[in-house]
């Protein structure tokens, strides 16, 4: 079974699309992929952009919406200080505030493709060692609320292997896939610093090394 899959172009199991994913089309294609190759236990994870302002924009209802979010974003750690100086978040947020409303316009994504491909290949190898296979699709650019930005899949002959890999793969994706997320609010992009994770070996070029 694995030999049949090996003969396919493995790199095609990582898809990057501009804008929202056509989840119906991708899921249909991947269901067929699993069925045709005799995989009996397949898991699919579908990420949809929620139609709501990010949590950090809503935590303190007693303060003006954008101002409170700005404070929350920048007050705690070095990442947030970086955001303050690099992207002039306060200035942008205040501009949004003067419009007297904060309209969530979705999420925007940037991807560093060479590293994403090597990260995915490493996971594909791990999956094959367990007799399974992986696929993943992700959006680049703007994805509107309610639309799909991320799908991952595990194909396996056995349920236990599929479920074990599924959780590990999706979790590692969140922490190590080189993708940057921005909230789009009032047509401006805000780096999602609070939800972002340092990659392994971050700080290599800092004075701590």
């Amino acid at each position, binding site marked *: 079974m694995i030999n049949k899959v090996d003969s396919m172009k493995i790199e095609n199991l990582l898809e990057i699309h501009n804008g929202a994913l056509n989840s119906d089309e991708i899921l249909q294609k991947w269901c067929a992929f699993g069925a045709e190759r005799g995989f009996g236990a397949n898991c699919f994870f579908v*990420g949809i952009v929620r139609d709501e302002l990010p949590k950090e924009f809503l935590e303190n209802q007693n303060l003006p919406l954008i101002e409170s979010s700005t404070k929350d974003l920048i007050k705690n750690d*070095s*990442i947030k*200080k*970086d*955001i303050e*100086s*690099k*992207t002039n978040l306060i200035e942008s947020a205040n501009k949004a505030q003067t419009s007297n409303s904060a309209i969530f316009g979705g999420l925007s*994504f*940037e991807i*560093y493709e*060479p*590293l994403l*491909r*090597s990260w995915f290949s490493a996971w594909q190898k791990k999956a094959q060692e367990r007799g399974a296979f992986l696929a993943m699709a*992700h959006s680049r650019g703007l994805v509107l609320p309610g639309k799909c*930005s*991320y799908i991952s899949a595990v194909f396996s002959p056995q349920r236990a292997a599929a479920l074990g890999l599924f959780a590990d793969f999706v979790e590692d*994706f*969140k*922490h*190590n*896939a*080189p*993708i*940057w*997320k921005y909230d789009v609010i009032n047509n401006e992009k805000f*780096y*999602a*610093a609070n*939800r*972002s*994770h*340092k*990659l*392994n*070996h*971050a*700080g*290599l*070029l*800092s*004075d*701590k*090394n």
Partner: protein
Amino acid sequence: MIKVEFLGPLGNFSREFSAEKIKNLNDLKEILKGENEISQWLENCAVAVNGEIAKDIQKPLQDGDTIALLPPVCGG
């Protein structure tokens, strides 16, 4: 030349350095730590050399290499 890419919230731009000037990652660090806007990100950034995460500050660099500075990530 060695290409250095500043990705994601760093601004998505690249610069080129002479391979004579940066023989290893430590040489790059010495240059970037003197640049105010970039230096404040260094503690949070990982570094990739030709698409692989670097672990060694003394990693030798060669003409034609591509280095990427990678701020904290969040996909999905």
